[in-house]
């Protein structure tokens, strides 16, 4: 049946106009949120996601934000629908929650949904999740249950038929450290969901509700058709891979297994996460929504990476098997504060599983951690509390079958997320950044080299409390097809002029620094792809020239003898090294 037969109220042209239309809606929501936001994480780091959903909670379009939040809003809308019932949701309502077990993430992700009505009929939702810089709970340290992580907002109405829930506002103000910022972010999110409502209604009024509905259905069908077509190009079979996380920060040194299985049959794709670790005591758990997101992100990358909008049609041929109680399907009261770290490694492990059959579409392991750290204290100059967050450090990405990995770029949890400029951080907080640089030799060796990791060293200008929650120090980003592994993530602290560099993991839950002390965080690189001895001598020489690879590594890993000063290649020696 052609599209025209199935959807008589629309046609291919109107459908395409609508596709551009819904993209423009979520884009404008993003613009308005960003411009109105109060905190660095939203404005500078762009840690948020906006979206449009059907009346049933199916994703129509979500703006590029956090890939790993690909399911968070849809599941939230569905939960709100279950909670209130369709009849319990009325015009003028704005619904909110930050329930970790629904969003799958941490309590900072306050998620607003505005039901959109047309002539009294619910026709969809506009939603906005944004990361609040503080939601209460401890600063630094470890949590082992959700109750110690801050304010939990159950599903409720922030606005009930136009009337604002001032009690909720009071509760929020009393539970967060910087109420003006929280309320500012809340207002920014309201601007975003109202923008979504207004613009979506413009489309409905312009083209008619039924035409819009059918066009959206057609867009989803097109996304499904594309996903199925591309799944067919993956050979049938069962593919497995394994990796691990360092630990949960509580049982230090106890590795956490990540085992995935992918089953491809015809145009159906299944991700089986049954053998991922049970949920853990430390705050590295995430909810089942994140478990689904792992599978969806990996699937999207492999089947329709550049198709937009992101909508649920693209996932109709994806099946996810995941029992509850796993570290990526954790149940109450699991601690969720650092929800984002483990799912990234799950995604990478899916790529690893499929590498033997579709080497041209996957990527070697990447640094897979935001490598964020924070410092807080009292600024002696202003007498005010400061909370310094540099945003994601950026690290190395895995090499591909035909290309080097990218250096210094945010991990797969995030997309259009930015770091904070060092100058800006120094203006706002009593710190001096001593360096922000690529780490030579941190990328895995290979015919195609992995991207380089990044190091930042920061010195305190006053006493402050430092914390870092970094993983993947031990499970280093792996190579594929004979490529080497990369440098892992790490952290170090200098106290009284002495560097402590030998942490058992990359987690420093609380460290008190004095004026003049320093900390260093290092993001690892990306794994290499293919035998390093097959890398062209000229590429190795260029890497040495640019300082990405040392002459020593060129010799030992790539079998290329290059003079570090003159960059002259010793051809005979190179032939000898490569013959081995």
């Amino acid at each position: 049946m052609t599209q025209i037969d199935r959807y008589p109220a629309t046609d291919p042209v109107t459908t395409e106009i609508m596709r551009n239309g819904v993209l423009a809606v979520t884009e404008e929501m993003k613009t308005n949120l960003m411009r109105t936001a109060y905190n660095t994480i939203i404005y500078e780091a762009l840690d948020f996601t906006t979206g449009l959903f059907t009346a049933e909670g199916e994703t129509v379009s979500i703006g590029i934000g956090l890939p790993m939040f690909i399911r968070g809003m849809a599941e939230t809308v569905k939960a709100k629908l279950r909670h209130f019932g369709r009849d319990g949701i009325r015009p003028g309502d704005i619904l909110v929650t930050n329930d970790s077990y629904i969003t799958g993430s941490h309590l900072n992700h306050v998620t607003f949904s505005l039901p959109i009505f047309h002539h009294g009929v619910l026709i969809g939702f506009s939603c906005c999740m944004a990361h609040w810089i503080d939601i209460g709970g401890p600063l630094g340290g470890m949590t082992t249950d959700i109750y110690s992580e801050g304010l939990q907002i159950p599903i409720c109405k922030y606005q009930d038929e136009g009337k604002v829930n001032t009690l909720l506002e009071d509760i929020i103000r009393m539970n967060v450290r910087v109420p003006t910022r929280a309320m500012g972010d809340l207002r920014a999110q309201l601007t975003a969901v109202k923008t979504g409502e207004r613009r979506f209604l413009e489309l409905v009024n312009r083209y008619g509700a039924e035409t819009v509905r059918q066009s959206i259905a057609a867009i989803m069908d097109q996304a499904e058709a594309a996903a199925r077509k591309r799944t067919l190009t993956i050979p049938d079979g069962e593919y497995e891979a394994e990796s691990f996380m360092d630990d949960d920060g509580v049982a230090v040194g106890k590795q956490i297994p990540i085992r995935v299985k992918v089953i491809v049959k015809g145009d159906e794709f299944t991700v089986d996460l049954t053998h991922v670790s049970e949920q853990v005591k430390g705050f590295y758990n995430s909810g089942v929504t994140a478990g689904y997101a792992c599978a969806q992100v990996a699937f999207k990358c492999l089947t329709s990476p550049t198709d937009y909008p992101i909508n649920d049609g693209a996932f109709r041929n994806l099946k996810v098997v995941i029992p509850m109680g796993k570290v990526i399907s954790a149940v109450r009261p699991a601690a969720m504060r650092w929800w984002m770290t483990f799912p990234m490694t799950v995604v990478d492990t899916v790529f690893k599983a499929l590498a033997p059959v579709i080497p041209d579409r996957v990527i070697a392991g990447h640094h897979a951690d935001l490598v964020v750290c924070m410092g807080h204290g009292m600024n002696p100059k202003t007498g005010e509390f400061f909370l310094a967050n540099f945003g994601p450090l950026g690290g190395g990405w895995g090499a591909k079958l035909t290309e080097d990995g990218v250096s210094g770029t945010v991990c797969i949890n995030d997309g259009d997320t930015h770091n904070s400029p060092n100058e800006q951080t120094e203006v706002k907080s009593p710190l001096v950044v001593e360096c922000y640089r690529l780490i030579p030799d941190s990328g895995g060796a290979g015919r195609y080299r992995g991207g380089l990791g990044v190091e930042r060293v920061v010195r305190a200008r006053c006493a402050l409390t430092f914390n870092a929650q970094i993983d993947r120090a031990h499970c280093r980003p792996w190579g594929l097809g004979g490529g080497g592994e990369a440098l892992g993530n790490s952290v170090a602290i200098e106290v009284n002029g002495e560097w402590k560099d030998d942490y058992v993991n990359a987690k420093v839950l609380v460290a008190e620094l004095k004026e003049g002390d320093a900390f260093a965080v290092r993001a690892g690189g990306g794994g290499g792809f293919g035998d390093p001895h097959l890398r062209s001598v000229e590429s190795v020489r260029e890497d040495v020239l640019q300082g990405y690879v040392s002459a020593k590594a060129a010799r030992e890993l790539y079998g290329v003898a290059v003079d570090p000063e003159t960059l002259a290649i010793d051809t005979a020696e190179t032939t000898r090294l490569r013959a081995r």
Partner: protein
Amino acid sequence: MSAGTTRHRIRLAADIGGTFTDIAAFDVAAGELRFGKALSTPASLVEAIGDGVKKAGVNFADADLFLHGTTVAINTMLERTGARTALLITDGFRDVYEIGRVNRPDAYNLYFRKHDPLVKRAMRFEVRERMYAEGEIRTPLDEAQVRALARRLREIRVEAVAVLLLHSYRNPAHEIRVKEILQEEAPGLFVSVSHELSQEYREFERCSTVVANAYIGPRVRQYLGEIEDRLAAERFAGEFLVVQSTGGLYEAGEAKEQCVRMLESGPAAGVLGTRALCAATGIDSAISFDMGGTTAKAGVIYQGKSLTTGAALIGGYDHALPVQVAMMHIFEVGTGGGSIARIADGGSLRVGPESAGAAPGPVCYGLGGTEPTVTDVNLLLGRLAPDRFLGGEMKLDVMAAERAFRERIAVPLGMDAVEAAEGILRIAATAMSYAVKGVTTERGLDAAAFTMVAYGGAGPLHAAEVAREIGMKTIIIPVSPGHFSAFGMLFSDLRYDYVRTHPMRLSEAVFDEIEPEFGELEGTGIAAVRRTAVAVEEIVLARALDMRYVGQEHAVTVDLPGEYFADHNLEAIKEAFDRTHELRYGTSAPQERAEIVSLRSTVTGILKKPPLARVAEGKETPDARAFTGTRPVFFGGRFVDTPSYARVALVPGNRIPGPAVVEEHASTTVVLPSDTLAVDGFRNLVITIGSALR
């Protein structure tokens, strides 16, 4: 030549684009505007200027002002044909330029690419020095090291050097000293230091700005030098001014140093033309819509002023190199006449962003293009006449376009070819309407309330659909829409923009500190204006502050009258900020504290403008000579017999009800069935949008 009477009475403007070089000449004495168009000559751009001036029928020797906008700067950057450049940067930060902001907009694409630095790592050198954020020295500059570096740069035959030292916006002493040393040790080197271009924080953006300037500097300098030589040879005795991305002019000497300020000079001049047209016709607010072969661009005139922005991303969002200088605020979408229509994998119909460009071009050009484009669609629907394209210089192949369209689009979709063609046009129009709306939404303005001024080769062809999509009521097609940027330059003023980051709480703002800072910026600007030999009518100073609520991250620029500073009126400043915030974001928080991030100063030297003269109105019905025939054009689901007119024969007062097409050398205006076209006293085509939706 009878000196004094004939000399120095012509103002010349030259806009070099990818395909054509446009000349606009205003004869002050005769009150006459002339145009010349010549093919751009990539090998020697200066030649095309000479050709165009000849075609306009004027002499360089008769001109007192030569105004110039050029793509040489942007092309050098995009085509990577700049100088062998090095970067000197604060110790510990040489990779900032490569790391950038770590973002990955192409979020699911494992083969994503990030920005590609103009200077490779081996050419980025670290300098031992450091400032604190407050501008106090943490580590003194190691001058001996800089000297050694300078000598090394000379040895390795570097042509240009960019210098970025942290917090130089608060204390430029080290950057100034590094520049001095470089000039001493390596004279002849093009040296660019960041604080001279931008005094705003954000080291990656400032770094990218100063590197771009150094990278394009030598080539731009040489190019401007060639023009100067040519002007001298032609006995031009006036002043040579270059158009900046703000639309303001600066002296060629300055342009040779601050090259990065002219990146978007052509598009900016189009917006200036729009402003001039608005001023002449009494329109308060307008959106310019400039559509060419590969892109459509929109800019804004709001309450008589063109809106500018403090930074732009050059080369597409995903791998952009940021440039942090003042620019006209222009939104761009990848839809143009050459945009290709295709069926995507899942069976959906897409228009662009791939473009057939000029080569192979649309199928109907017969130059090897095989994929149907927006231009082919216009031909199939009868909007373009196959035998009148470019004044008949180029015959269009209707049959080939139709065949390609049927095979690649209509049959696979199961649609009628003409119906699908009309659909492509609608898809293109809606896509462009989002760009046009985008430029206003970001400012909290409603595009529907604006007048559209449409130009560029394809602008007048699509303007009616785009305007209708947005709900705009009036479109103006200026005289010679294909020369509009050159026209706009004639209405430019000398302009110098400065920004300095200086964070402070508004409540603690000390006017005794602010005043000297503004005074310094303004003094620099006034001196720059006075340095030019052009007689300015007056110098206008404008002040603004970038402000935000305490705790908020992003600042908004608040234009403020000088009296607020003279009166030390904190309350008025706060109120103006609240108002701006409300307008732009729909919310404000008057009870909350505000802070200042940066001071902005604009110094404008007002030039005498060519008066736009009204022509006496003629009769309503166009002269018979204007009517060029009737042809079937597809409107509202069917072919309608549609009259065509030659624009050159239309006179003020003429009215033409839609449907109609009006043709001129490089452009065709489409008047939709329910719309009405009138020729105003300045010979502009004014289209009033009717009520029918489509």
